[in-house]
């Protein structure tokens, strides 16, 4: 595997650990961590902070709550250790839950110039999509509101921020204007997540538009 050089931000790691991010953002974070041991270790540290914070406050529970829990553990099946969750065909396990077993299952829709996309079903505060960019293609400069996260699954692309290959994640905010160009050697497949700031909540038709304005 090539070395990952573009990682998650501290904000994303902490938000993922705290459980305060939208589902689509959790999905891209979990997919990156599946490919990146460095960010997995950072996440463990943030989870440890969560464990320490959990210890600090308590609120009395009833005896009935304990009785109910004892009832649940006596009745319930004890799950054997499940088989480890693994991805396949370039799709890490968390993403496989959304796209099916492999990239061959994806129902692509053309958005122009050979670029294709597939929107994944998540909660509406942020949108996750797979992007298929043919080798050597430049994705026209596009604007977006809020955050845009792009994780490479296959191939590579390059823009003003550098080169992004499998496992690398690009984190672009409002200001970044970029024109990613896919490597010539291989078609590029990415997972892309855009968040829709809440202030745009009333403009659903606008959010429903593909961000690739082609």
């Amino acid at each position, binding site marked *: 595997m090539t070395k990952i050089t573009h990682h998650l931000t501290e*904000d994303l790691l902490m938000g993922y650990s*705290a459980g305060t991010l939208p589902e689509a953002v959790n999905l891209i974070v979990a997919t990156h961590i599946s490919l990146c041991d460095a960010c997995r270790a950072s996440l463990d540290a943030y989870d440890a902070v969560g464990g320490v914070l959990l210890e600090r406050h308590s*609120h009395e529970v009833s005896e009935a709550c304990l009785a*109910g829990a004892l009832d649940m553990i006596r009745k319930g099946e004890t799950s054997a250790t499940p088989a480890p969750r693994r991805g396949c065909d370039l799709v890490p396990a968390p993403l496989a839950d959304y796209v099916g077993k492999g990239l061959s299952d994806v129902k692509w829709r053309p958005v122009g110039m050979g670029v294709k996309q597939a929107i994944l079903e998540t909660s509406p505060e942020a949108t996750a999509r797979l992007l298929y960019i043919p080798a050597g293609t430049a994705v026209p400069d596009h604007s977006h509101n809020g955050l845009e996260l792009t994780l490479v699954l296959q191939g590579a692309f390059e823009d003003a921020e550098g080169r992004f290959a499998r496992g690398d994640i690009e984190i672009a905010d409002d200001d970044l204007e970029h024109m990613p160009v896919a490597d010539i050697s291989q078609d590029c497949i990415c997972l892309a997540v855009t968040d829709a700031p809440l202030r745009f909540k009333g403009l659903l038709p606008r959010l429903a538009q593909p961000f690739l304005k082609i």
Partner: protein
Amino acid sequence: MAESPDWTSCLIRIRDDRDETAFVALFRHFAPRVKAFLMRSGADAALAEEVAQEVMATVWHKAAQFDPARASVATWIFTIARNRKIDALRKQARPEPEDLPWGPEPDPDQADAVGLQQEMDHLGQALAELPDKQRELIEKAYFGELTHREIADATGLPLGTIKSRIRLALDRLRHAMDGRAR
């Protein structure tokens, strides 16, 4: 209690011996904490208690997956509670990273678990020693009571300042841990 009880061996008794007495002890300590966590995240008392009950039952049922070399008991329970919170409060799935190629070791190194617990104690101490304002910000961000923007609105501080304060607080925590780890 002068010293914090050894929750790791308590959970290992649950895992290996299905020891109900150990479960009751673990429940009495952690269920109120999970309940408080849920309430701070916006659940009412009844829902928080229901979720705390489910979380503790999950601890029993999934005890085989507990790896003392990788997470303390408090950390492990925190991750279960956080995932249940997302499910119960926001009705959303929680994508989780895939498993490492190697699973929990069948016979984990006792030294790893002890070292991890020491780190947790240091982290807890470092958190307790933070200035009140910083600690409160971390707690607020963590428990999802307020978004960064809402914290900024509430305190009148610009967003960048809030984020850098949280980062500074975490840096201090990390530094405290590094300094004592060896």
